């Protein structure tokens, strides 16, 4: 650090140290300390965790001996998870398409529409899938309908955000060309913008389908249908060897869907 005193005149001056780095480090340390502290935060103590690490040994031993006879009883709920994911992806992605076009400055008809759509979208995105699931279970009762609705909102948030960012980055040449030929706004979007973003749209849709399969574990826990319902009941009964069957099955199913989706994406996009 004292190298500044070096005699060579041609050495470039050190860039002035930015204040952002120390401020960032202090903010990071303060937030972490506050969050971990017993008094202001969640009371995290690494020593306690290490001391208690064998607390879970018995449960984990049960988890490691899955009860495979339980497997056939999971198929019906797994199918429900699949159905919910398909329907929610379809509806969510269909709704997200116009929402995304209104949320991009390139395609929004005017500023108020753009701002309104953006605001609604950030509210939709701020609510986690499980909160949607809880509210819809309260509104329409337990069952897959509540789950599908929750996933639809979750999907609209994800797809509309990603797609509107893609639309922001399109080549404006075709848009000018379409305008010059007298196309109205909708025709411009249909013939100049949509073809450019369509492969991305398909990729995002397949991707949300994967997310939905994963999310259905979570939303089932509050009664919104799918495999999560079974996970919740077995967990409540402390039937750990059944829980592990569901976990392994879900893992295999997600892997399968992911491989299928990668294959489809490669073929279609």
């Amino acid at each position: 650090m004292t190298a500044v005193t070096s005699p060579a005149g041609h050495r470039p001056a050190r860039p002035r140290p930015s204040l952002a780095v120390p401020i960032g480090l202090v903010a990071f340390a303060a937030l972490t300390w506050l969050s971990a502290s017993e008094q202001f935060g969640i009371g995290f103590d690494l020593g306690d965790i290490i001391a208690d690490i064998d607390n879970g040994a018995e449960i984990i031993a049960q988890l490691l001996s899955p009860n495979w006879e339980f497997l056939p009883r999971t198929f019906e709920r797994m199918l429900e998870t699949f159905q919910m994911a398909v329907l929610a992806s379809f509806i969510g992605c269909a709704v997200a398409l116009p929402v995304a076009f209104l949320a991009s400055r390139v395609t929004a008809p005017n500023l108020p529409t753009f701002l309104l759509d953006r605001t609604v979208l950030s509210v939709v995105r701020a609510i986690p899938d499980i909160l949607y699931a809880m509210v819809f279970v309260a509104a329409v009762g337990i069952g897959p309908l509540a789950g599908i609705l929750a996933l639809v909102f979750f999907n609209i948030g994800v797809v509309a955000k990603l797609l509107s960012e893609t639309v922001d980055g399109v080549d404006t040449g075709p848009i000018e060309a379409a305008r010059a030929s007298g196309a109205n706004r909708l025709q411009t979007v249909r013939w100049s913008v949509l073809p450019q973003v369509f492969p991305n749209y398909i990729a995002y849709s397949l991707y949300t389908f994967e997310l939905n399969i994963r999310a259905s574990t979570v939303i089932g826990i509050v009664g919104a249908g799918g495999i999560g319902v079974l996970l919740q009941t077995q967990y409540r009964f402390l039937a750990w060897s059944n829980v592990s069957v569901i976990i392994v099955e879900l893992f295999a199913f997600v892997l399968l869907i992911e491989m299928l989706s990668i294959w489809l994406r490669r073929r279609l996009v």
Partner: protein
Amino acid sequence: MTAASGSAGTRPERPSKAKRNLALLGAAIVVVLCALTVDVDPAELARLPVGVGLVFHEMFLKSGPEWSYLPDALRYMVESLQIAWLGTVLGAIISLPLGFFGARNVSSGLVSNVMRQVLNAIRAFPEVVLAIAIMIPIAGLGPVAGMLAIGLHSVGTLGKLTAEVIEGIDPGPVEAARATGARPLQVQRWGVLPQVLPEVIAFWLYRFEINIRASAILGVVGAGGIGFSLQQALSFNRFERAGIIIIVVIGVTILVDTVSGWVRRRIIEGAEARTDAAGAEALGAEGAAS
């Protein structure tokens, strides 16, 4: 659309759409089958607008949200934020070295393949499953279990993203560091780390934003945070209390997203601009969402 029948012989032939149409048809069949077989009663569907309207009315309009519960709701939300923050910190610290091992260009082929598979396996388990199966047995019910579950899941997603960023670096500085006689660890420190750090930190912040949403889930299985209080309010039909909780969730999440997004942009703009990869990155980062 019928212009294809144009007489000009020089017009190129239309590319075949058979494959695309077949794929669309297949997808349509799957959707219709699911719609017909799913366990949703048409009567249920008919009641849907009324049910949703009623809950919305009870939450926000009838007597207004329960503002007196605001301090408690904020306290639970802060707990959720703390769970998310510590989980992200834990995930970031562990995933950074793992990301180096997972990158093909700075680690060996075998090591990177094994590491990628390990990260994929971790990523496949949702936080809530990690919480139920591993963390609650070890740490007991409470926010610490939630934080550990989020941390472990984040290791999977952040490790993968870090490895991908490292694979995209400019090899020049690495060669330069080697040419000066730097040892392997020094090469990583001075040749690789400065190139990837801005993007990696931006991913950490993005992950924090996602983890806030994930921490809401964990309350439902007893791992602390705002999810638990919402579940309590709804199961006791305290809709006006649920209303204020939802308002707090939306408000605080948007606030944190805005601040975090601003910091991320600030960090990335200081680095090399990589606007063309933005879409792919957004997808990758969203991939972290689950």
